[in-house]
Each structure stands twice: as C-alpha cells, then as structure tokens.
C-alpha cells in the first residue's frame, strides 16, 4: 500500500508515467469515465482550500468514483479532539483512498502510518504539497516538451514557499537544469534546499532584480510576497512592487516564456498579463486535476487500456 507524502516519494519514472497518463486523460477523457466506478475518495480537509479540494473531488468524479469527507476541521471529530491517527484509521474503513490537507506539518505522514488505504498529502502547513508540484511538472512538460536544459526563474517568497522547494527538488533530478532565484534578502531560498538539490551540484544564480534576468528565462514561476513575512512595514513597502509582473517587465522576455503561479494570486501578476499567450497559471490549475486523476489511478492500482 503506497502513499504520496512528499514529491520525492515518486521516482522520475513514476512521474513520467503519471504525466503520460494525464496526457492520455486529456486526449481521451471518455476512456477514463468509469475507471474508478465503485471506488470512494475521502477528502479530509482540516483547513480550507479551494483549488486543491475541488480539483481532487472533480478528479474522482471524472473517474466515475464517489467522494465523501469534510472541508473544515470544525465539521469533523477533530473539533472534539480526535487524533489524526484515529480519524484516518476509521475513515480508511469507509474509503479506498484519502486526500488529506492539515495545518500541522507531518500530519499526512502520521496518517499514512495508520491508514489501511493510500494517503495523498494535499498540503501540510508550510511543509509539502506534492500534487501542486505534479501540476507544475505537467505544465512544464506540455509547454516546454520536457525538463532538460531549462533555465527556471523563481520569483518572490522563496523562503517560506513550499511549492518552490518541492519544484526545485523535483526538477533537480533532470539534466542541466539551471535555477535563477529572484527574491529580496529576507526571502531567499534556504541553504538546505540548495544542498538537497542533487547534493549541491545544481547551478543557482541569485539576484534581487527580475528585470536583470527575465530575458534569460524559459520558465518564470511567480509567488506571492506576503506582508506578514517581513519584520518591518518599511521593508515590505520598499520591496513589494519589485516582484509584481507587469507587461512592461515582460518586454525583454522570451517569446516562449512560460509564466507560472501556484495561485491564489493577489497582485503579483498584473491582470493585464492574463491574456498573454505566455501566461500559463490558469492552465496550471487545470492540469492539476489531470495529474490528481493519474495519481489516484496509480495509487489504486488501476490501469486503463
């Protein structure tokens, strides 16, 4: 029985196979309509989420399965003080697979120790969010054709952004990837992520200026710079506009740049860019559903001919 808690729980071959399945689902959705007939997904969301929960639920419905669960801790027995282990142990008797989001970091791992069915981590605090990374990888594959020889710019909050850390670790397993890290000093990528990325053998360029490097990028992954991450208001005000992507800043970018964002966006990408063909962030959210479908099939051991 297999669970996915961290993106690195999946080998490169498995990720490639998930991408192939997701692409096949996009091409031939009818083939998969009954793939999970009679199966149930428990969607255990101990904290609110829009995209992730709805995309997991849509994924299971599109596979012909059923969904049960809750969308906030208050409507579960966690509100009475039940442990994650007990909740999951019981739910695993009612469902075939569990997608779990929890504000406590490591909760899905604890769940996987007790569960009788596969657990998918749908986000644990600021720690891991592997299915977001799967969505990111499918987006890159479809937009760029592959993962090798890419220059990937990551912009904004690189310190606390869990999606950035997972994406770097996942991409660092491919050849000749170069990362350009664009952030204020306060929000730089932690050293341990750099060390873990292929044992420190990956090339990282660090800069504070998006304008200086935007012309070199194949992918620009934007994240939100959050006010609460700064120690003082003056620094926040000084820096916040540097990391807003505008049509002006895109003038020197490549024609085939792929602009990504895990969403929700607040103001870090100007709405004026939404119609630019290089804007991929809404497609990215759509691809997330297909990768979740592929992952559910893999973890349930279902293959569709």
């Amino acid at each position: 029985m297999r669970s996915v808690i961290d993106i690195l729980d999946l080998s490169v071959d498995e990720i490639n196979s998930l991408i192939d399945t997701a692409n096949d689902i996009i091409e031939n959705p009818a083939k998969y309509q009954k793939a999970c007939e009679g199966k149930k997904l428990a969607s255990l969301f101990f904290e609110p989420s829009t995209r992730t929960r709805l995309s997991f639920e849509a994924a299971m419905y599109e596979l012909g399965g059923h969904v049960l669960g809750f969308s906030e801790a208050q409507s579960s027995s966690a509100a009475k003080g039940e442990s994650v282990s007990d909740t999951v142990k019981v739910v695993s008797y009612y469902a075939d697979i569990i997608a779990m989001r929890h504000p406590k970091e490591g909760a899905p791992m604890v769940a996987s120790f007790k569960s009788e069915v596969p657990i998918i981590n749908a986000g644990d605090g600021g720690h891991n969010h592997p299915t977001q990374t799967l969505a990111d990888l499918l987006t890159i594959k479809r937009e760029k054709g592959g993962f090798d020889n890419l220059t990937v710019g990551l912009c904004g909050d690189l310190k606390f952004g869990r999606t950035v850390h997972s994406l770097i670790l996942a991409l660092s397993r491919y050849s000749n990837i170069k990362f350009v890290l664009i952030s204020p000093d306060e929000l730089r990528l932690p050293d341990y992520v750099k060390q873990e990325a292929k044992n420190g053998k990956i090339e990282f360029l660090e800069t504070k200026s998006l304008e200086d490097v935007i012309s070199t990028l194949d992918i620009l992954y934007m994240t939100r710079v959050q006010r609460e991450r700064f120690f003082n208001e003056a620094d926040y005000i000084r820096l916040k506009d540097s990391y807003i992507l505008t049509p002006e800043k895109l003038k020197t970018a490549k024609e085939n740049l792929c602009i990504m964002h895990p969403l929700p966006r607040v103001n870090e990408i100007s709405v004026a860019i939404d119609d630019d063909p290089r804007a991929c962030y809404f497609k990215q959210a759509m691809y997330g559903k297909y990768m979740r479908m592929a992952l559910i099939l893999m973890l349930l051991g279902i293959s569709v001919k």
Partner: protein
Amino acid sequence: MNIDSITNGIVIDHIKAGKGMEIYKFLGLDAYECSVALIKNVPSKKMGKKDIIKIDSLLDIDLNALGYIDPNITINVIKNEVRTEKYHPELPERITNIIKCKNPRCITTTEQELPHIFKLTDKNGPVYRCLYCETKAQ
C-alpha cells in the same frame, strides 16, 4: 578512588565531564540489577577532566544512540577481563524520543503519544531533522 575492574561488561569512557549522569539516565541504567559505577571528573590527559561509566554486565543496549549525545565517547567491551572491542559510537540514522521538535506547527505538538523521531540528513555537521516536518534539530 578505586573501582573494581570488570570481568564481563561495558566501559563508557571519554564522556565530557558533567555529562555522565545524562548518559546514565538516557541508557536507563537505573532499571538494571547489575553494578554500575558513574565516576565524575576523572583526570584525563586528553580532556583535562572526563566522566566514565562502568557497567558490570554485557547489557544488550543500543549504545550507538550515544553518538548523538557525544560522538567523542569511547565504548570498551570487556570479556573475561580482556578488552575485546573499542569504538566510538556511530551517528545513529534515527533517534527517538531524545530530543523534541521545536516547530510549533509540527504534528508532534498535538498528536497524542506520537514519538519524536529525528533522522540524520547530513553526517557533516551533523544535521538531524524531524521525521514529520523536517525542521532541523536545535
């Protein structure tokens, strides 16, 4: 100060002075029936002062976890009054319930009776991280 020599047992030597009691408690030596000597502040050429623990029995206890507490410790195994093994404990791959995760967002802060487990992620350092949330041990 005289402590009898051991026929069959374990001598934990080169313990940093003052740390002996911590190791005694960590190994749970109070629970055993055999003779145990904890000697504090023994003069040492190498260390100035050191602590030593002598255990008069070949107890089946995991001494490698001591590598986390103090990697400079020497473990001597005595059989028939002859030292048959001498080694420094290796850094354990995992340590359980020795240190606690300090991350307030970690599941260990709320989940009942969940063991605090840390895994070795970098031998140079060394760096241990919480199994659940990957926060670095302090």
